[in-house]
């Protein structure tokens, strides 16, 4: 019973996401129209790299001789069947190119997500439990600093300190190129490369979640149920651990879900700084190669990714708090 309810909720939320994705496709189409040259020029990548026959074929395929509405429908059909075009710069279909780069980005995002939520919850509750004492002030100053630091600059400064001066971590990439590690050695190598990029991106979100968690814990401690718990003789430790933390964590998780899109945007910058071979670095490369179609493809896929993450967060949420489902 509960399972089928959960399933129908999931299905309903999935259906709600469809218009969002369609509007994004339409927006991509609009951007294609705004770009200099016609859509075929953009889709073929740099001028001169495609033969005239191919261009004519492209124009026919996208119906560029037909009214704008028909063009939009053709474009949508193309995208929905996951045909994102061809990148001449990389000599590969765009969809395949993006799929190959998805893994590293997801690894980076997931690490940052877990680290920042966990550490943020910890620091935030530490600050709230020591309100206006030195721990709280210290954490406040650090969050104000971290919240104002541009992500790319933080990355560069970490490289200067920990890679160039101290030599503890590699400056760029995801694995040692010539080492050809296998199994555990390979994962250890990747983890070693992951430290600095993950730390860079975590700092910013850590600041955000710490502030949120602090406010949330303070709010929960003023609730009636805490008075009840005290009255029945629980220690402050027990109240904090069993009652307050669980409730206080909810807004942080919500915020983390909302931030998925921003996190992906931050990944673009961090991947560029550390040459982490994910979607962000691909976006940067396509920017330089003026491969607009590839950039549009990345934008489309990452938006779908965010829609999916929001969906998963909603589902996780409705499982944690069954009241939400029946609003």
């Amino acid at each position, binding site marked *: 019973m509960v399972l089928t309810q959960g399933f129908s909720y999931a299905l309903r939320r999935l259906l709600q996401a469809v218009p969002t994705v369609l509007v994004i496709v339409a927006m991509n189409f609009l951007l294609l129209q*705004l770009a200099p040259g016609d859509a075929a020029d953009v889709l073929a990548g740099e001028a001169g790299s495609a033969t005239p026959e191919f261009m004519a074929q492209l124009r026919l395929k996208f119906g560029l001789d037909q009214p704008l509405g028909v063009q939009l429908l053709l474009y949508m059909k193309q995208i929905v069947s996951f045909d994102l075009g061809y990148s001449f710069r990389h000599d590969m279909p765009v969809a395949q190119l993006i799929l190959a780069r998805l893994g590293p980005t997801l690894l980076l995002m997931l690490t940052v997500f877990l680290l920042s939520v966990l550490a943020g919850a910890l620091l935030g509750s530490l600050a709230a439990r020591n309100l206006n004492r030195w721990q709280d002030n210290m954490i406040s100053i650090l969050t104000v600093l971290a919240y104002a630091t*541009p992500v790319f600059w933080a990355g*560069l400064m970490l490289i200067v300190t920990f890679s160039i001066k101290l030599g503890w971590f590699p400056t760029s990439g995801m694995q040692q190129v010539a080492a050809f590690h296998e199994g555990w050695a390979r994962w250890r190598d990747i983890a070693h490369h992951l430290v600095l990029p993950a730390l860079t991106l975590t700092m910013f979100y850590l600041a955000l979640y710490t502030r949120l968690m602090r406010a949330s814990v303070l709010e929960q401690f003023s609730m009636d149920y805490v008075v009840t718990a005290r009255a029945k003789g629980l220690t402050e430790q027990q109240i904090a651990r069993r009652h307050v933390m669980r409730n206080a964590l909810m807004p942080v998780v919500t915020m983390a879900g909302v931030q998925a899109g921003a996190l992906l945007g931050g990944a673009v910058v961090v991947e560029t700084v550390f040459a982490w071979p994910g979607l962000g670095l691909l976006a*940067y490369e396509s920017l330089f190669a003026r491969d607009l179609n590839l950039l549009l493809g990345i934008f489309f896929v*990452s938006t779908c990714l965010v829609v999916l993450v929001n969906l998963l967060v909603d589902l996780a949420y409705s499982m944690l708090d069954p009241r939400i489902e029946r609003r």
Partner: protein
Amino acid sequence: MNNGISRFIRHKPAVIGLILLMLVILAAALAGVLAPADPFALVGKPFQPPFGEHVLGTDMLGRDLAAGVLYGARTTLLVGLVATTIATLVGVAIGGLAGYFGGRLDSLLMRFTELFQTIPFFLFAILLVAVLGASIRSVIFAIAVVSWPPMARLVRGEFMAMRNREFVQACVAMGMGHLRIIFVHILPNTLSSIIVTGSLMVATAILIESGLSFLGLSDANTMSWGFIIGSGRTVLRTAWWICAMPGAAILMTVMAINLVGDGLNDALNPRLRSL
């Protein structure tokens, strides 16, 4: 209002923020006096470390970094302020309409707003500048396009709450027109929240601008902090100061604005002091 000013002054971080912000504004205003040289001019040997012949050193082409940082303050403040003003106007218009009229218009506008909140905003900004060409206008446009949704949501909430207050109901009962109710009675009462959110939006706009120009998406004719960092990163190993100085300037400016925004929040919305 006097009360508000005294609350702001009692908030020490806000005063620190205000002083830092004044310094940045002063630097931008006096860039021409403090650094007579054009920021693009080659003034000496390349790769000079800071605190030598030039206060902040020179970059890999021999341009004076201090001049770059001073002139960069102009670009940053200009882009941040103009983009935020546009985003605020759009956000207030959309949020106000949705909150005041409610119903189907509200759900339509809010779906639209949610859509803009879903898309990865930095990638969208990159895409917009890439399509429209890297000029200061398209950078401002791109930042405005990605930053209005929080303002729209805030204004919608405020307008919805105001709509049901007695004094607004009284206006409706008197037969007052919608425009007059909105502009004379509701908007002035929501202004403090709009100012607080707007001031924090300037900080975000500056971060986006520096990120874009770091990636090379800035006007080639204007000096900006992100641009200096972006061009200096290739020589990070030998000349860390080229990246460090403008980055510190961004950090200081954004922090100053955030602190002032928090102070304004305490001063103007004393009931919302929890966060």
